[in-house]
């Protein structure tokens, strides 16, 4: 296994479309790296450039410290799992898995040993004599995995390998791929548009948008400290609630004003977000994750500056929790990045967002405890976990107070230039 590194990699297609720009990233030996982003963000292009299936227009890609820009795929010693599996339909499972070894003139007894071992790891031992057409979707997926692991290559490349499976199987295979990757200690680049896969599988997650790297971090970091509005709204389900708020000074501290309501920003959070102070008197984007909202009736003693009031539009009882859709009197954050994320889900969501913006009302989602008596049509008081509020510059769309992080545009460019 080996490292894979991108330095200043760019891709421009022959028709002039730019798919990737200035992509720089190091994947460590044995690391599980996930590329995630909406369709057309360049994640698959980046992966295919590592495989050698796409020319590299700019920059360099190294596998095990060797520049591979001009190398044919077969000389890169990588294995790839394709979205549609790309099994050879005329060969049995055994031959499919053995093919790469046979091409590389591995001794027959060695091939037999390795194919049978791969079959055992993947639970395909009984299927080895069948052809792909006789297998279920999940089994085909395993064969595609088998073709990769039997090789013992420098790196595994996986292009949305689970997207053709149904939901239940996907959850199972997700765990299985993570287990196999862990067992083999294989350097892996995994492309997906599913942020749940990104969160659960990756050692680190690289979020891409329009061919540009937005953030690379451990999944929890990406979730807790998104670099900008795009990452904030893309990662997380239900997604982060984003409302416009006016940041004001109150005594020594800062408060967020949403229409008539006020949320206090805890002093330790102000300290942890350098530059936030400079936004006092300005309108910012305020991000609140659904789990930071709780029915105040269940939260015990909550000071008024940690509360938000709203009207319940609808509730979804999920058994373990209650998702409450609550309408606040505050404008939603409508920026290009937020729009893009919604558009990737469904165009109609953008229309909804815009009508909310016109009415200056936002429906936020709160994860309430199951004991909540929240009913549609009623007003509700919510406790806000203000220690984990997120703040965004509405102009640059970057998170406020992420100094030293590689992210979108700098919130305070002039200050940087002086230093």
């Amino acid at each position, binding site marked *: 296994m080996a490292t894979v590194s991108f330095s200043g990699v760019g891709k421009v297609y*022959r028709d002039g479309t730019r798919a990737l720009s200035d992509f720089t990233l190091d994947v460590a030996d044995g690391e599980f790296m996930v590329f995630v982003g909406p369709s057309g963000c360049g994640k698959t292009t980046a992966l295919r450039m590592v*495989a*050698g*299936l796409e020319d590299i227009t700019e920059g360099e890609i190294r596998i095990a410290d060797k520049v591979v820009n001009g190398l*044919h*795929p*077969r000389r*890169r010693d*990588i*294995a*790839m799992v*394709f*979205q*549609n599996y*790309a*099994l*050879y*339909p*005329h060969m049995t499972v055994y031959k499919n898995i053995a*093919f*790469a070894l046979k*091409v*590389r003139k591995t001794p027959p007894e060695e091939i037999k040993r390795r194919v049978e071992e791969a079959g055992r790891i993947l639970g395909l031992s009984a299927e080895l004599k069948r052809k792909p057409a006789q297998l279920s979707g999940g089994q085909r997926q395993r064969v595609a995995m088998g*073709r990769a692991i039997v090789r013992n290559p420098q790196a595994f490349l996986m292009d949305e390998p689970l997207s053709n499976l149904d939901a239940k199987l996907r959850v199972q295979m997700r765990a299985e791929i993570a287990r196999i990757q862990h067992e083999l200690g294989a350097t892996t680049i995994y492309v997906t548009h599913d942020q749940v896969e990104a969160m659960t599988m990756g050692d680190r997650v690289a979020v891409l948008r329009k061919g540009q790297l937005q953030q690379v971090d451990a999944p929890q970091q990406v979730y807790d400290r998104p670099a900008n509005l795009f990452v904030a709204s893309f990662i997380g389900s239900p997604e982060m609630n984003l409302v416009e708020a006016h940041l004001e000074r109150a005594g020594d501290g800062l408060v967020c004003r949403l229409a008539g309501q006020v949320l206090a920003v805890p002093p330790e959070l102000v300290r942890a977000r350098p530059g936030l102070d400079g936004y006092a008197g300005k309108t910012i984007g305020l991000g609140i994750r659904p789990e930071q909202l709780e029915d105040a009736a269940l939260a015990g003693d909550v000071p008024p500056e940690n509360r938000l009031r709203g009207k319940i539009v609808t509730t979804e009882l999920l058994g373990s929790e209650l998702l409450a859709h609550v309408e606040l009197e505050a404008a939603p954050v409508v920026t290009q990045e937020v729009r893009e994320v919604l558009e990737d889900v469904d165009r109609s969501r953008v229309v909804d967002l815009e009508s909310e913006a016109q009415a200056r009302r936002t429906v936020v989602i709160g994860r309430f405890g199951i004991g909540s008596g929240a009913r549609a049509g009623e007003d509700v008081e919510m406790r806000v976990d203000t220690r984990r509020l997120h703040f965004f510059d509405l102009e640059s769309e970057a998170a406020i107070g992420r100094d030293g992080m590689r992210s979108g545009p700098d919130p305070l460019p002039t200050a940087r230039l002086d230093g």
Partner: protein
Amino acid sequence: MTPQRIGRTISYLVLILIGLAGIAPFLYLLLLSFKSRLDILDVPPPLHFDWSTIKANYGQVIHDDHYFTFVKNSIVITGISTLIALVLGVPAGYAFSRLRFRGSDTWASTILSFRFMPPVAVAIPIYLMIRYLGLLDGYLGLILPYVAFSLPLVVWIMIGFFDEIPREIDEAAMVDGLTRPLVLLRVLLPLARPGMLVAATFGVIFVWNEFLVGLYVINSQDHYTIPIAASSLLTVESPIDWDVAAAVGIFTVVPILIFSIIVQRYIVRGITAGAVR
């Protein structure tokens, strides 16, 4: 009878009628080839057969007219030219399907347009070229133009079949360690076999029946193909013997019939694979 059964019965009746209409000319031909000259004009032909007449008709075709030579010529020329057309056309179809190169789309349609040209339009230039090359009156003199005629169709049929095979299969094979040519040889050819048989069939039928270029290029009886030999039955001096002509007809049809029976299950599968999937 339920309405369903009535419907089924009617559709079978229609199918049987169509089948009969299709097979009738062959049966009639077979029947005629068993008759003597005098019986041949009777309509409907009498259904009593005389072994000596049959023997006489076929004997004349085989021994006096050397028909096995012509059958052999036709098989050799058809076989070799179709084979060459496949060897050249399959990689070309693969290249047009997979690779983007300067003018690839233009070239693909240009190649197809060659096919629109009827042989008669180019028969004389071809004759002159073949004469210039000194290949008149030989197998090669026919094989070259026949390859040229079959090639566009082979290329186009193969483009269609390769387009049906997902590109990821090529890519997987390259990642697995093969070069492009080896991908074609080891992975795609087995998958494209129905396409190759369809292309071969069209080529074989065309070459087997081709007459005009053959007429120009071939002079000596030794090198006649079946269509030319059949036409030589009709000469200025002698009126045509319809019974012998019918036996010749049988000789023309039988080899191609055997070929069709062998490949037809692949063709049907191939055509549906190309169209529906």
